């Protein structure tokens, strides 16, 4: 992206302004709110990955918690079994690698089907992983899970530093950097020839095959990339959370990934990011203030489907078009 194109397209100016604003977030938020914000960022990366499959390839996975867990457990297991390698610059590639392996294996099975069959298969496979994580107590900590200590970064050690300080300093900027790269990479993917091929598959798989796209293979590619993004989100999340449990691969958690994507809107590139942010705050406040968290989720889902089928981002963007039309 050259400077010329950036200045021609207002979208990139907005992105740039938001990025600059994000640099100042740690000074504006309390540590508690900042942590929440960081949860949101990790889910935003998850949402980007999940939506490559849902929004761009037309496959709804109810088992993406599995890849989140793959990324998260990569971190926790290295902490437990390979502590000398416990530094971010190793942990991130490792989590990408393991979530890629898992998504190749599970994806290979899932992409043979579409629609509800795909969704159910993805869900079943993730529950298989859940059962493993749950049962192999001695390795994975079972339902107690595993603790995730603070990592090192390029030789920098954070020994003696408390987690909140770590999160409001170095780690925030690390997270912001990884998020920005993920954002740019995914933006590139969806607008590339490869991304167009995925959208062609989504729109009409019969014709896609007939213009020479190997539909199944490309679905698998999308699945793999999606799994890696979600795994990356999972790995980054563990440092904020400090603890991983088998629940990450449970379908309820996968359902939350689906929910936040629908909430933001899967038809718009930025939708899942907005959804992830809203979801994080919604969940916290709903859980803190009512016992009816599930009720809140259910009710908002109904509102979404009936009134905002394109999610919050979709509603905002159509409102924007209307306003623009009126003022012209």
């Amino acid at each position, binding site marked *: 992206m050259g400077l010329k194109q950036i200045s021609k397209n207002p979208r990139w100016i907005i992105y740039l302004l938001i990025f600059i604003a994000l640099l100042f977030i740690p000074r504006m938020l309390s540590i508690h709110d900042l942590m929440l914000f960081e949860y949101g960022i990790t889910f935003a990366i998850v949402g980007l990955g999940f939506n490559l499959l849902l929004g761009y390839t037309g496959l709804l996975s109810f088992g993406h918690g599995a890849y989140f867990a793959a990324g998260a457990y990569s971190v926790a297991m290295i902490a437990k079994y390979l502590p000398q390698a416990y530094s971010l610059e190793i942990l991130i590639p490792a989590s990408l690698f393991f979530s890629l392996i898992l998504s190749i294996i599970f994806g290979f099975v899932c992409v043979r089907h579409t629609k509800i069959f795909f969704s159910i298969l993805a869900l079943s496979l993730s529950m298989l992983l859940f059962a493993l994580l749950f049962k192999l107590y001695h390795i994975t900590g079972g339902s107690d899970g595993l603790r995730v200590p603070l990592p090192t970064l390029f030789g920098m050690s954070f020994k003696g530093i408390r987690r909140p300080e770590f999160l409001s300093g170095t780690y925030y900027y690390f997270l912001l950097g990884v998020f920005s790269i993920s954002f740019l990479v995914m933006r590139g993917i969806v607008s*590339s*020839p490869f991304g*167009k091929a995925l959208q062609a598959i989504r*729109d009409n798989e019969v014709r896609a095959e007939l213009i020479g796209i190997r539909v199944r293979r490309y679905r698998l590619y999308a699945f793999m990339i999606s799994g890696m993004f979600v795994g990356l989100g999972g790995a980054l999340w563990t440092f904020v959370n400090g603890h991983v449990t088998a629940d990450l691969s449970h379908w309820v958690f996968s359902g939350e990934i689906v929910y936040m994507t629908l909430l933001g809107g899967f038809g718009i590139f930025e939708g899942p990011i907005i959804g992830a942010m809203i979801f994080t705050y919604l969940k916290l406040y709903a859980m803190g203030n009512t016992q009816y968290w599930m009720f809140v989720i259910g009710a908002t889902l109904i509102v979404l489907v009936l009134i905002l089928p394109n999610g919050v981002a979709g509603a905002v963007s159509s409102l924007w078009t209307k306003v623009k039309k009126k003022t012209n």
Partner: protein
Amino acid sequence: MLAIDNLKKHFGFVKAVDNINLDIEEGEIVSIIGTNGAGKTTLVNLISGYIKPDSGRILFFNKDITYASPYVRIKLGVGRSFQLIQLFGGITVLDNVRTALFSKYGMIRRGLLSADRYSSVTEEAIKILDNFNMADKRNLTPKGLSEGDLKILDIAIAFALKSKLLLLDEPTSGVATSDKFKVMDSIVSAIKKEGISTLIIEHDMDIVSGYSDRVVVMHEGRIMAQGKPDEIMENKEVKATVFGIVS
């Protein structure tokens, strides 16, 4: 270039395609006409590899493609459009054509740079659309197009694959009668510019007669007659069974 030899496809008792022999020469525009249920679509499906025949052979440039997959046939240069349009509804008209081009050039693995950065492919896509008088609609999605434009776009996609043989199944079905000739004009002028061999399926003789080098009449899975358009118009048997005129 295309040689069909004793091709047969039955669905139970229905003899959809029943021992058809047909050759198409390079650059030739051949129309197949016949009433509904004559077996025209089935023949196109067999040539494009959509379904497999019971027996017989299909040769394309002397290569046996009878049982080749649709994918292989497309790579060899057999392209088709659909009676019921098959488009990519969620992406723009430009991207419908461009994706076909990317696929043709083996570029769909390129996953990081925006499609717009491949300007030669984009220009080629616009040129193709321009051939079909659709360049000004390139930023619309198919939802915003008329039935005639949808048909043309469907063909433009097949065209983008640089097919050596185009199979067009009822290119004007669903198009308002007043637009049918306009649609045929756009299609045939684009095809003639490139000299592509074409098989046009149509149930209405009037629409194709002006555009065809040869007309083949199908009836109940068999070829009843073939020849120059005006010869067919005068053929008594064809008149009686296909046009329903008894003289």
